[in-house]
């Protein structure tokens, strides 16, 4: 089981390039550009320095007798003083000032405030928990709000303002292809804004150590065309799909009579727990357990029965009270909740 999930993860890592050097949004482009400029300048400086070091090391230095002793009045050697002033003062000032200006300019393109200087009304509120992301869509009137988990969908070309809150410890929101890091600080509210300029699935991670499973606290940002995004929104807003097959119907009964309903919500049924990820549309998600596992039946069965082996320390207990048939039916039911 463990090897399979590792393999899946590796596969994901290869196909989804979670890198700030592969930007997919305006903010990430700017950061990436700044990164490259900085890299090139520093590499150039480093190249110059290495050249000088090699030249120093390789040129004929002569014997001690051939050189005048170092004279305090002259600064010793040919143009030593100029080297120090040019290389030690002017060059760093010029380079660092340039970089400073470029950085300030890049940061000025991150408007988290709107034209009046107020924080903009958030489109999404993310509540970070140990070790999953609770995502609330709060656009529009309250009966158009909905909740999902670990997977954020955004329309291509539209910036989405995200409000960041945490009830337990510090976390950090970082989707390298879309934005810079912004922390979740318990007791405070932070905002960030992400915008994608092409469709795709972009992986992000928690970027502040937050406990045992910090390494397994990833999220997926799915950028879709505006039409697809609206369709996704409408689907998410709808109540849970009614089970159509007899297995799924039996599975619904198993689900509702198990303790799942105490912590999870499946809107449209009696399950209305809020301390665990919302499962109303779990079948439509790409991954489970904050992108720890690919979302398929086998992994879901494993998660339900042995979450503590897959992600030790999470609040999901090992639920071993089901017979094999009940488990399969319940997973059938959950997978059809698209």
């Amino acid at each position, binding site marked *: 089981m*463990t090897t399979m999930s590792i393999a899946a993860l590796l596969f994901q890592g290869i196909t989804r390039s979670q890198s700030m050097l592969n930007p997919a949004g305006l903010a990430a482009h700017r950061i990436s550009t700044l990164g490259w400029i900085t890299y090139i300048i520093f590499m150039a400086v480093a190249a110059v320095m290495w050249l000088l070091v090699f030249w120093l090391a390789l040129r004929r230095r002569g014997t001690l007798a051939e050189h005048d002793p170092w004279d305090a009045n002259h600064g010793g050697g040919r143009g030593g003083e100029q080297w120090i002033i040019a290389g030690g003062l002017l060059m760093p000032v010029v380079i660092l000032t340039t970089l400073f200006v470029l950085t300030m300019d890049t940061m000025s393109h991150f408007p988290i405030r709107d034209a009046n200087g107020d924080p903009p009304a958030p489109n999404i509120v993310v509540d970070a928990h140990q070790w999953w992301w609770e995502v609330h869509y709060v656009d529009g009137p309250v009966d158009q709000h909905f909740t999902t988990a670990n997977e954020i969908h955004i329309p291509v070309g539209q910036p989405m303002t995200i409000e960041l809150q945490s009830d337990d410890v510090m976390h950090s929101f970082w989707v390298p292809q879309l934005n810079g890091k912004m922390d979740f600080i318990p007791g405070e509210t932070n905002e960030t804004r992400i915008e994608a300029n092409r469709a795709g699935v972009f992986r992000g991670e928690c970027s502040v150590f937050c406990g045992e499973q910090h390494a397994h606290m990833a999220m997926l940002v799915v950028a879709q065309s505006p039409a697809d995004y609206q369709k996704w929104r409408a689907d998410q807003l709808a109540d849970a799909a009614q089970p159509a097959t007899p297995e799924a119907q039996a599975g619904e*009964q*198993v689900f*509702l*009579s*198990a*303790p799942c*309903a*105490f*912590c999870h919500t499946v809107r449209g049924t*009696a399950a209305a*727990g809020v*301390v665990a990820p919302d499962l109303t549309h779990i079948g439509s998600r790409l991954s489970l357990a904050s992108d720890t596992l690919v979302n398929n039946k086998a992994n879901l069965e494993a998660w339900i029965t*042995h979450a*503590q*082996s897959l992600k*030790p320390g999470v*609040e999901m*207990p*090992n*639920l*071993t*009270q*089901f017979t094999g048939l*009940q488990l399969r039916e319940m997973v059938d039911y959950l997978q059809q909740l698209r």
Partner: protein
Amino acid sequence: MRKWMILLAAVVALALPGNSQVQNAPAGAQPSLEPGYYPVGPNPGYGGTPAVKNEPNPVGDDDPVALASGRRLFVWYNCYGCHGGRAGGGMGPSLRDKTWIYGNTDADIFNSIAEGRGKGMPAWGLKIPQGQIWQIVAYIQSLGTPREPDAPK
């Protein structure tokens, strides 16, 4: 040869289930398939006998993880709504005082939670894993002692 055996043993050990504090439901206890309904009183699924007899708490009474989990579950499962924010009572009796209607050993408290009781205490043993019930027992036994997590101020 020895190196490979050690390696093999390590792999086998790693593959075993990691969580030792959760046991399977007792033999004969079937999860109720009635959605949303809580039978109360001694749970028929346990055959009319108490769920556990005279066992001490397998998670231990002062394991900080168990106490923290117990406190968290006390809130998540709405125990505080009936028994009071810090278990001082309300709709249900106080769990902080010295009066125990059904006994105060670890096993007695486990049974009260698992089986439910006639005046409205639900039978949690039909639903939640035994390990979680033991964690709640640990929290209840810690009330009023220095180990109590999130004690009243």
